[in-house]
């Protein structure tokens, strides 16, 4: 798995390279690149979640084609949950702190933030793995099984969301438990 931080650093253009050697500006440049790497990572994760959602939408299509409307409503709600968490991943804050902030986010925290976000890939993998049983349940036409698989996927998405929401607090050590 490529480390996007290295890739962003390697691909610096001439202007960025100049910026990274100017005293006082170099730290700004490095933090900016770390945030860009984290942003790229989150967008990729959101896209993976989007692909999983597309698979769930295919399940909805199967149900609609068969006019098996019993579980359509809860499947629609699941799709909306996917969209919601997808948006949160895509548009989450990037770990910025201004001059003299209350809670400072420096390079070590930004590195941790990247690694924290990277660890969430496991959650997405678990969600992706939950789509196939749902698809099988839809194909078999068992309403009970469809309901169970929807519940499973929903709980996995909730878990991802809860973990993701706490990222900044956990990285900065400000989470009150």
């Amino acid at each position, binding site marked *: 798995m490529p480390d996007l931080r290295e890739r962003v650093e390697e691909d610096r253009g001439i202007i960025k390279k100049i910026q990274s050697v100017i005293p006082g500006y170099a730290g700004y440049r490095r933090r900016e690149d770390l945030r*860009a790497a984290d*942003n790229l990572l989150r967008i990729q994760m959101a896209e993976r979640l989007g692909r999983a959602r597309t698979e769930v939408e295919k399940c909805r*299509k199967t149900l*609609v084609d068969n*006019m098996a*409307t019993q579980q*359509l*409503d809860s499947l*629609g709600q699941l799709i909306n949950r996917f969209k919601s968490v997808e948006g949160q991943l895509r548009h989450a804050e990037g770990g910025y702190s201004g001059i003299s902030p209350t809670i400072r986010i420096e390079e070590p925290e930004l590195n941790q933030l990247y690694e924290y976000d990277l660890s969430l890939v496991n959650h997405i993998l678990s969600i992706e793995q939950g789509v196939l049983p749902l698809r099988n349940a839809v194909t078999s036409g068992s309403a009970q099984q469809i309901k169970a698989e929807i519940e499973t996927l929903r709980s996995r998405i909730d878990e991802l969301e809860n973990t993701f929401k706490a990222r900044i607090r956990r990285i900065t050590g400000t989470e009150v438990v």
Partner: protein
Amino acid sequence: MTLIGAETFIWDDANKRNNVMWKLPRNVKLNDNIVVREDEIAVFYRDGKALAYLDRPDRYALTSQNAPILGNLIHFLSGVRQWAEVYYLQKRAFDAKFGSKQPYPFRDPEFGMVNLRVFGEFRYKVKDPANFINQFVGALNAHTAQEVEERTKEQMVIVVYDSLGKMKEKGMGVADLAANLTTIEQVVLERCKDHFELYGLSIEKISGLYINMPEEVQKAVDTRSSMTILGTSYMQYQAGQAMRDAAQQPGGAAGGAVGAGVGVGAGFGMGYMMVDAMRQQPPSTVATVAPAQNIALKACIACGMQIPADASFCPKCGKPQTPPGKLCAKCGAQVPVDALFCPKCGTKMGGGVCAGCGAQLAPDARFCPKCGRAAGQ
């Protein structure tokens, strides 16, 4: 103006509101920067080719041959200028309304042909920038949300009707529409894909779906809902309604005391019938009440409506269902056997029957008005 003429562009909020798309107002020069925000996507075209979809929020420096010296030199020598352009599109969703301009006939298994009208709101967003630009901007020159909605809302109505038609094939009738709105929404959302993705649009949500039925069908649906809630058959429900109406209108057209008698009588009669009917049904079977055809019926002697065989009064016209005892000699109304006065004209009863021709005699008649035979002979 800088030395090389480059600028940094953002999609100004003044241009953004209610615009789905905005095109950079001039030919892109070398190192022109554009800022793409979280809710935007920019498409960079050079010489007609879509070179990049800039959908990550950032500031992007663009390249073209329109450099200060090189570009001008090429233009001076050949007259050719490279054409580079940027289209901004909004990623955020827009809300629009749709509604049928005229009612659509819907063949319902219970109510027959019913004219339906549908109204609602839908939320759409640009899903595929290239398709959107080609279909809306290129083909239709539509940029604003209003122009896009004009092109899509009629299509939405068609998809809703189409979905209702498909659901009808699976047994859904107009009486089930209200209870299935979220399911209808999901069906419509799924079926929308085939219609809107070619325009680069995705329908994200449908809300406030309202399916309007004709008044008489709505009344019938309401009646059916009430029957289900009360756990009664149609006849029992109608009887209850007649009882209520009779109690509310003690006078009626028949006049004070007599009308009151009919109303109260009907009330008692129907009330007992309802109570009996309710007693026969265990509470758990309320929702699955026995259909009306299981009850023995007879025709009302006055209006001919089918009513329960043991009903004392007609739930429709309120007439007593006892066989006619005798006729009023004055107005000819049917009068119960034991009535002392005609309930219609108030004439005193008790005249008896002519022994000769069988005609009804007035109480004070000394001769039969039909055959002339003396009364009592």
